[in-house]
């Protein structure tokens, strides 16, 4: 029987503002995704280990403090080095508009600004992670 896609939800580095992470994690779980909640204070290496151990289809990251480009780049590099190019990377949070463009160029599949409606988020996540 096919199961729904597995997505790891996390904040990276030292920023622990997790309102958005909590809310979007619940929205995704309610929509049927299998959410693995990694919480705050993650390193890119830890998320990579989790992706492998949990056989995850995607990682969702929430940012606030300006560390978004650093960690997106690092995680995407690790995915490539470990033949995990198929794993989707989704991000959201306080990210200046120019950086949203830069993140997409790096290969982040979707970037959500604060205040994006639930329906919008679910639609765009489903576009890269179809629900069964």
């Amino acid at each position, binding site marked *: 029987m096919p199961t729904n896609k597995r997505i790891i939800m996390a904040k990276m*580095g030292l920023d622990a503002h997790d309102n958005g992470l909590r809310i979007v994690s619940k929205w995704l779980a309610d929509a049927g995704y299998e959410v693995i909640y990694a919480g705050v204070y993650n390193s890119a290496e830890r998320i990579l280990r989790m992706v492998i151990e949990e056989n995850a289809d995607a990682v969702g990251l929430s940012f606030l403090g300006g560390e978004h480009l650093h960690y997106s780049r690092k995680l995407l590099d690790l995915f490539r080095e470990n033949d995990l190019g198929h794993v989707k990377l989704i991000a959201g949070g306080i990210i200046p508009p120019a950086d949203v463009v830069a993140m997409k160029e790096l290969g982040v599949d979707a970037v959500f600004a604060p205040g994006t409606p639930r329906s919008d988020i679910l639609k765009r996540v489903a576009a890269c992670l179809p629900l069964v």
Partner: protein
Amino acid sequence: MAEDPKIEFDHGKGEKIPHFRSLSGLEYRRIYNRKDWDKELPDGGEYPFTRGIYQDMYRGRLWTRRQQSGFGSPEESNDLLKYLLKVGQTGINIDSDIAGKIGVDPDYPLAQADVGLQGTSMCTYEDMAALFKDIPLDRISSTLIFPPPASVVMMGQYMMMARAEGIPWESLIGTMMNCPFTQLVGPTFQANMDFFPIDLALKIGLDLMEYLIPRCPKWNILNVNSRNIRECGVDAVQEAALSLALGCDFVDRLCKRGLDIDRFARRIGFFSAVHLDLFEEVAKFRAMRRIWARLMKERFGAKDPKSMWFRCAVQTSSLTLTAQEPMNNIVRAAVQTLTAILSGVQSVHTTSYDEAYCLPTEKTQKLAIRTQQIIAYETGATKSVDPLGGSYLVEKMTDELEERIWEMMKEIDSRGGFVECFKEGWVEAELNRARYKLADQMESGELPIVGMNLFRDEETAADIEIFRQAPDMQAKRIEYVQNYKKNGNRDTARKALKNLYERTRSHAGEDLAAPMLEAVEARATLQEVCDAMREAVGFSMPE
């Protein structure tokens, strides 16, 4: 060619707001009158301080304009402080980066990408001295935003700096926030548990308070960050109940150490949020003043009226800012700043409109200060004490909120107090419930937000200047601290750290502030001091 605009408004029906509930769920009545409230009010500065803690309030002196600031290196932040003071800021509020708050140095691997991002990167005595260069420590009050154990390290550096400048400790004016539960991002569980054992942090915070009470009589030893509680998404009642309950836990522990309440209660303050429900917020502050006064007097037996003062700094809410049409945030912050003044608070940080995207620029911080100055000098809102006092609506709402806050405090009390509720995960569950509810309210439009869930205009892209850090700032800070630990004579530091390790391992029940301060004096870095204690109790941090 432009399409014909679709007009949705029907003048025949008129425009109506969706409901008449307050943010905390109180039902606003159609009109309030004598039947709702018919009591006498105390004077300003009179117990239980409903109308304000001073008789003359802003007629005597204006509130302090205290913008939380700091970014990048201590030197860059010193320039920013001088700029803010030049345009009219009257107090300093130093925010370090997260590494500084959780007690790790910039070269700690997990910290490296966050160095200097959300505040000033600080870890050595020399950093503190560079940050406060040319700032008169006895004439300008400074708030330092650090939880224990970092609070002890930073306080030690601050006191060393005063001594080097010939300023007696008795003259130091300011606040060390010093709360291990609310100083990161509110009382969320994991955020406050992962970098230091919470019981030891609390104990060290109390040690510092005890150390400061006789030595720095003008210095504030604790500030409960009720704003960070609110910004997790709880309502005014929950914010007040959780923060007042936490305040009581500290007072209770200090009393149990044998300290006289009238020697320290006046040195405890609060830092609250101001949200957009104007009258409910005014009622919240008035109710919090009443409750704190009663608690100090009746529960803890304070005799000095100053011990009963609920002194409160505020920052306008960041949760109410929108990334959509960010200029709208200027209006929100102005209304909230006015609300704070109508509530009689002691200092204000007006949040800049660009904080929905980045740290504020100099330009937007100046606008925030100007907002306060316009309210102070042009509106007349400052010319009378408690200008909304006696309004049937505000008085009734103050009574209603007070009752609800007491109710929730009783529940917290029955569960053993805030600290127990935090450790058991009850606080975390409350916060999460509130967050999901808030998200639902935003989705359904029950909480109308103009430009976001109401009158949303997808066409307009945000066009604002974005604050940018110097590209080599992080690398320089990492290199600096690595060299600091490598070079110079480190023997005294090593000896002091060893002593701190031993004391923590074998005598953790005794005062730890003094051995920590000795290590600071010996020029140990922030993380070296914290690590000595982490190692002593076998605590490991996330890598």
